[in-house]
């Protein structure tokens, strides 16, 4: 297995190529905008899940034949104006929007945190994000429930399975009008829900949602920070783990890889 943690950001054709993994044929693109922060973490998560990750540059017009795309966390364009508002206009976003809309074999896209915000700004997902009700940035280990284990990004979990993954953001309060919320609930598009306390005031404790086709998913907490024992949260929904040993987020990445290979 070749491991490369590039010291520099920006587009790298192939960031990791998992020679030993049966899933290494699946190529997941990870988009870097100016101000993206968790892009290299998302690349690492894909690699640890057995896939191959490709760095995609926001200004590019080419998706480099990737099989799925992750829009990572961070503060793209500083989160100035509104989180995700400026990134949404990146040339690559046009490609992603086009590829993600459409029929059964539309491109799977996962937006994590800032990525989720970009997807709502781009109207690939409904609703929007406003400031946490505490008005503070919050970093904490958060318990979630998988409400829909049928999406590209959740199929490795059991329905109603719980996870503990880090949450960290300033503008994480999910809002939408009641009709939209009812629609999301009715169509099984609430993919993740906060449990054990709503950290930011999100409507109906919603932590993650999908589009109608289920290929586009947005999630506020960070699964890519719970994929490697020793560097994750202190706990896991599966019970006790070692210090910073939680890896509950890995299933997100193996889900899409297995779906795409099988």
């Amino acid at each position, binding site marked *: 297995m070749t491991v490369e943690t590039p010291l520099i950001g920006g587009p790298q054709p192939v960031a990791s190529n998992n020679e030993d993994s049966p899933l290494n044929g699946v190529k997941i693109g990870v988009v870097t905008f100016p101000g993206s922060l968790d892009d290299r973490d998302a690349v690492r998560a894909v690699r640890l899940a057995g896939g191959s990750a490709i760095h995609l540059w926001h200004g590019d017009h080419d998706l480099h034949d990737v099989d799925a795309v992750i829009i990572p966390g961070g503060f793209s364009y500083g989160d100035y*104006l*509104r989180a995700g*508002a*400026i990134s949404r*206009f990146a040339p690559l976003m046009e490609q992603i929007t086009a590829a993600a809309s459409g029929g059964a074999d539309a491109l799977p896209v996962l937006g994590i945190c800032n990525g989720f915000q970009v997807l*709502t*700004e781009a109207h690939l997902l*409904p*609703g*929007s994000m*406003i*400031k*946490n*009700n505490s*008005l503070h940035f919050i970093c904490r280990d958060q318990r979630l429930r998988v409400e829909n284990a049928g999406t590209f990004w959740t199929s490795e979990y059991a329905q109603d399975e719980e996870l503990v993954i880090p949450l960290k953001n300033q503008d994480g*309060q999910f*809002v*939408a*009008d009641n009709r939209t919320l009812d629609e999301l609930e009715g169509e099984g598009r609430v993919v993740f829900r906060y449990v054990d306390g709503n950290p930011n*005031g999100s409507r109906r404790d919603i932590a993650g949602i999908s589009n109608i086709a289920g290929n586009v998913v947005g999630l506020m907490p960070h699964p890519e920070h719970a994929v490697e024992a020793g560097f994750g949260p202190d706990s896991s929904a599966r019970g006790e783990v070692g210090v910073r040993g939680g890896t509950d987020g890995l299933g997100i990445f193996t889900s899409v890889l297995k779906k795409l290979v099988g």
Partner: protein
Amino acid sequence: MPRIVVDVMPKPEILDPQGKAIAGALPRIGLTGFAGVRQGKRFELTVDGDVTPEVLEQARHAATTLLSNPVIEDVTRVEVIEEDEQ
């Protein structure tokens, strides 16, 4: 240089956590005359030259696409302001 002002406010039905926090803080500093507070944004776009109808149209377009998110916000004003007016 002439400026175009764009005002953006949170939609009335959307909770405004910042406005709420301010409303809570006002009585604590002895200001009890207010029933509620909402916090929005004000943008000032400087125009290099005259404000042609076309530039004003650009400002309107910016207001609804970039400067506001229609899911949570309303554009409440797009207007040219005079040099000495605020």
